[in-house]
């Protein structure tokens, strides 16, 4: 099965392809809330795509569809050409909220992905140690999550996901709760790790600057409900990038201004709808 998948991938299939996806939730009063309408999106293998949109536009729901955690109400999702019917086994998912196992140490948290896949515990631990080093937490292996700062927990989370070497990386505002400096450092760390083997990345954020600085393509969603994809920009800034430097680039500013023109209206609409309800 894996061989077949990589064969199709080699043939140029998109890593993630969403076609005319609708997301709907049944409400308590029997009605139906349509969060996302007719969204089509594809992420090529090795491509870093950011989804930006106002709060409550269903960015995360789209990510959950790509992860297989949620089934679309209409339309379809396919991974390397194969329709997605269950959990997406090729994807790693970095969540917005704390998702580490609080009863495991940092090292155990990183090693668990290999252990459940059947690796020998000693080998899993050795590799986990290596990965903790890669995210700069080599000395923190025996700490429990509550003893780590928010940024350190995100580093552990990143190592936990990447140690399994997923072909696709799904990230849901992973650096949202962090302060500005830590976000920049984490962004650079992510780019560093990503450039080593260029996985397909789908990165959800509400921060347009972060989106442009990190990605190859920026996709804009309209304000919900029934939000759609309304824009798709290619970011042709030089790689490798440094987040703080790339933000000084004039091309960065031009692109930011151009995208912001469109996003601004949606953000205002989003706020009005949130307040009206």
């Amino acid at each position, binding site marked *: 099965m894996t061989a077949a998948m990589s064969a199709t991938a080699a043939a140029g299939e998109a890593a993630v392809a969403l076609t005319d996806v609708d997301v709907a939730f049944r409400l308590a009063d029997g009605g139906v809330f349509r969060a996302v309408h007719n969204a089509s999106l594809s992420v090529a293998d090795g491509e870093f795509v950011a989804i930006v949109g106002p709060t409550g536009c269903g960015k995360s729901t789209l990510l959950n569809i790509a992860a297989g955690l949620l089934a679309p109400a209409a339309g379809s999702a396919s991974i390397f050409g194969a329709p997605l019917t269950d959990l997406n*086994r090729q994807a790693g*998912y970095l*969540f917005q909220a*704390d998702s*580490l*196992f609080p009863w495991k*140490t940092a090292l155990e948290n990183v090693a668990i992905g290999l252990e*459940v896949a059947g690796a020998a515990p000693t080998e899993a631990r050795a590799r986990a140690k290596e990965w903790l080093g890669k995210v700069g937490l080599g000395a923190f292996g025996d700490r*429990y999550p509550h003893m780590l700062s928010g940024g350190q927990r995100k580093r552990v989370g990143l190592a936990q996901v990447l140690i399994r070497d997923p072909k696709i990386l799904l990230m849901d505002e992973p650096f949202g709760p962090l302060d500005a400096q830590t976000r920049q450092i984490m962004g650079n760390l992510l780019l560093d790790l990503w450039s080593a083997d260029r996985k397909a990345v789908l990165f959800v954020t509400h921060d347009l600057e972060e989106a442009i600085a990190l990605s190859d393509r920026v996709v804009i969603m309209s304000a919900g409900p029934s939000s759609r994809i309304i824009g798709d920009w290619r970011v042709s800034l030089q790689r490798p990038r440094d987040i703080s430097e790339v933000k000084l680039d004039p091309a960065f500013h031009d692109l930011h201004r151009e995208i912001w023109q469109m996003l601004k209206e949606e953000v205002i609409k989003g706020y009005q709808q949130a307040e009206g309800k």
Partner: protein
Amino acid sequence: MSRVTLITLQVLVAVVSVLLWHVLTSYPIFGRTILPPFFFSNPFDVAKQIVAWFASGVIWKHLYVTLVEATLAFIIGSIGGIVVGFWFARQPRTAAVFDPYVKMANALPRVVLAPIFTLWLGLGIWSKVALGVTLVFFIVFFNVYQGIKEVSPTVLANARMLGMNERQLMRHVYWPSALSWMFSSLHTSVGFAVVGAVVGEYLGAAAGLGYLIQQAEGVFDVAGVFAGMFVLAAFVIVIDMLVTVVEKRLLIWRPNVADQRP
């Protein structure tokens, strides 16, 4: 407040209380003794009784019996609570069917069961163990059930995305979460195991601390009753301290417990 002041003040409370007890039971104030020794005994008689029990060694047998009963009640009740808690949490339909009966059984004051258990299981330790089990079971059951229901959806989604199957979810997610809830109620459940044992002994037994107190009461030996109460209190405190040590070791990953470490 420093540790030394704290301990000094704590000891002071005990000293003042005992002193008051002694004065009010031994010296007439305005012509009458406020606490008649017949009903309240006095510190010296109680202390004498306690020393006599330990000197002659009779107390050890009773302590041992109570300890065995409480331990068995705790172990059996906990195992039952864990098994049923897991079962109900993973099978919502079963839980829904049994829900009214669980609530009914839990609402029942367990003391009324004591005579029935004595009838069924005799005057030996097992009727006391049974009473303790009915108390411990529900505490552990509710906590395990809650622990499984309250697993963070994000942690669960993360576990599934990391490739865990149902069995691995059980081992790495549900089990630790359930255990942490169970351990956080360890003080309560251990306390109830002792309550079950002592109340059971009090209502009919041939040995144990509850039996000792009941015997003294039967012959109006108030000093004996108080002595039994003090030994029981000390016994419970020692057990509670052991529980605290165990809890700190097991819940080291929890912020609130770990922060209390010196």
